[in-house]
């Protein structure tokens, strides 16, 4: 039974939620506002949230100076590609760990997660050399593989958690009805875990879209995604904050829109199994 809240308490809770949301969103808001300012207004001291001289010039210049569609398309291919490839590997792996666990399954899961704790820069030179020697440097397929491997532990962990919530008896029943292993995973398990798979998918796309270390280190011109596009407008020794903000806004807007429209699915998936 839902707990009843007094109107005063409800108002306080709503106010707190809005305050926290605003604090979290404030840097993005600042960036978007800065992208419409002149360079001089962008670095005004003391800083001003609003300005009198709004302009679209920054967007025009950023568009003119770079090949935005190419960066955008690379981001789409890399984030979607790495997600699909990751799912193809992670679904069978998570199935095995959830329904036919071995003695060392927990250790294996922990070991996979531990690879996420290593600073990326520690393996920069070996990874760079491997990509160089195999011809994967500055290719989209190379980045798909790199980002898939990077996010695979998270995908497997998330799917493992969702699969654990599905009663093994249902899968058992499908087996008794003559379902093959392939049929069990594709026609029984996957539809039941669809909310979890969808949220894993979304989260992985967001992680891959925002990745800004390997995507910059392993690319130069052909496969460079939007993270490299932003980096090309970053200048500690120049007054280009407004243009940098415009470039950043152009880079995050697609993923922000995707996140906005899929937030219900995302929250549903992320809280799946949180309450028994």
């Amino acid at each position, binding site marked *: 039974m839902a707990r009843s809240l007094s109107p005063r308490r409800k108002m306080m809770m709503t106010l707190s939620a809005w305050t926290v949301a605003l604090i979290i969103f404030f840097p993005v808001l600042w960036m978007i506002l800065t992208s419409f300012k002149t360079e*001089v207004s962008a670095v005004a*001291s003391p800083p001003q949230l609003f300005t009198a001289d709004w302009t679209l010039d920054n967007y025009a210049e950023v568009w003119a*100076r770079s090949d935005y569609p190419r960066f955008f398309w690379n981001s789409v291919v890399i984030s979607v590609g790495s997600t699909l490839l990751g799912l193809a590997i992670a679904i069978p792996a998570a199935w095995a760990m959830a329904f036919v666990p071995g003695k060392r399954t927990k250790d294996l899961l922990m070991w996979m997660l531990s690879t996420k704790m290593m600073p990326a820069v520690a393996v920069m030179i070996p990874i760079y050399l491997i990509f160089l020697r195999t011809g994967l*440097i500055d290719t989209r397929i190379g980045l798909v593989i790199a980002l898939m491997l990077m996010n695979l532990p998270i995908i497997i962990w998330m799917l493992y958690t969702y699969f654990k919530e599905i009663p093994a008896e249902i899968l058992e029943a499908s087996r008794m009805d003559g379902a093959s292993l392939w049929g069990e995973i594709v026609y029984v398990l996957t539809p039941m875990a669809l909310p979890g798979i969808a949220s894993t998918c979304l989260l992985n796309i967001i992680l891959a879209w925002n990745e800004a270390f390997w995507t910059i280190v392993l690319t*130069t011109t052909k496969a460079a995604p939007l993270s490299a596009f932003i980096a090309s407008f970053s200048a500690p*020794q120049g*007054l280009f904050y407004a243009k940098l903000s415009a470039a950043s806004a152009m880079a995050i807007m697609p993923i922000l829109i995707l996140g906005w429209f899929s937030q219900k699915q995302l929250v549903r998936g992320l809280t799946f199994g949180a309450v028994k």
Partner: protein
Amino acid sequence: MTLTLRALLGATVSLTLAGAAMAETTITVATVNNGDMVRMQGLMDDFYAKHPDIKVEWVTLEENVLRQNVTTDIATGGGQYDVITIGTYEVPIWAKQGWLESLNDLPADYDIDDLLPAIRGGLTVDGNLYASPFYGESSFVNYRKDLAEKAGVTIPDAPTWDDIKAAAAAMTDTDAGIYGICLRGKAGWGENMAFLTTMANSYGARWFDENWVPQFDQPEWKAVMTDYVELLTKYGPPGASNNGYNENLTLSLQGKCAMRMDATVSAGSLTDPAQSEFADQVGFALAPDAGLGKRANWLWAWSLAIPASSDAKEASKAFVNWATNKDYIALVASKEGWRNAPPGTRTSLYSNAEYAALPFAKMTIDSINAADPTNPATKPVPYVGVQFVAIPEFAGLATSVGEIFSAALAGQKSVDDALAEAQALAVDEMTTSGYIK
């Protein structure tokens, strides 16, 4: 064979040959995002008109990211970049590693003897030029003439540190938001340590003695740090330990820094009415000295170099020649005025009457000429470099020392403690690296 068939075959052969003759070479140029580099990208039509067979792909990155990516690529012989933008610090180190292509064979119209001797010296190793300067800079004092006049102080063209201290004290008006002096306080080998190393040079201090023993425990460094902390604490802007080049330039453009010591390359912005309300009130002076024969000015150039791993060296040399030639400077001047011409690389620029008439031209060339990378300090040193020490370990070490000194400026530790900590850190690093036997 029919006539038609012959004609078709002939046309095919001709087209194939023409195609081979016009085969396009693509070069990848890695560069930083600053005004001069952006301007160059906007003038590429001139390059394509002269070299229709060369296509240029740009990789523009933030300075530190560029350094990381280019270093990784060049150290592994990756060959991802054909032309790279590098600083004066990297050139001698990378050239000695055999990572850079010599540029001695650039065409005669490049006019190598026109390069400013100090800048050329910093890019030359064992008699070979390994990078061609795109723009060069030193550091000097810029100040607001109206505030100096109001405070009744005169800043000489070649001031001493005592002149600077007195002027900073006289011009500070905290209530009006005017700070007597703005100096770099943000930690980093290219931020506060670039300034402090030049200040140390003028005070008779040095990073290492002839045997690579760190010198932070010497009285000269104590004097440097005491005066630096006192100047910024008494007359500097609030939060000076967080201010780097950009922050202090912004304060100066807003007229809040009565006086500032920083890169000569910012003179164009400071005197541009579109960027500064006080453009007509800016005065310039040489970096100060302490009467010991060395001024506190640095020497830096962003230069174009060709990695030895490039597989398009000839096309890359054509690009380097175009971008750093006298003709390019004239091209910029014709399109965007002499104020925007890349400064600090060529003698001919400073003998041009129109450029020499700019308020900062003479002071810039005098500052550059006053820097000597091979003899930076008043005492003998085993290294090359004015505001840096050209050894691979310097960037990491100086950034760590910069953090300690920035903390001292923020009041988190005393000058004595900061110097003792820096000394211990430097001794440890130099011993581990094998410089101290």
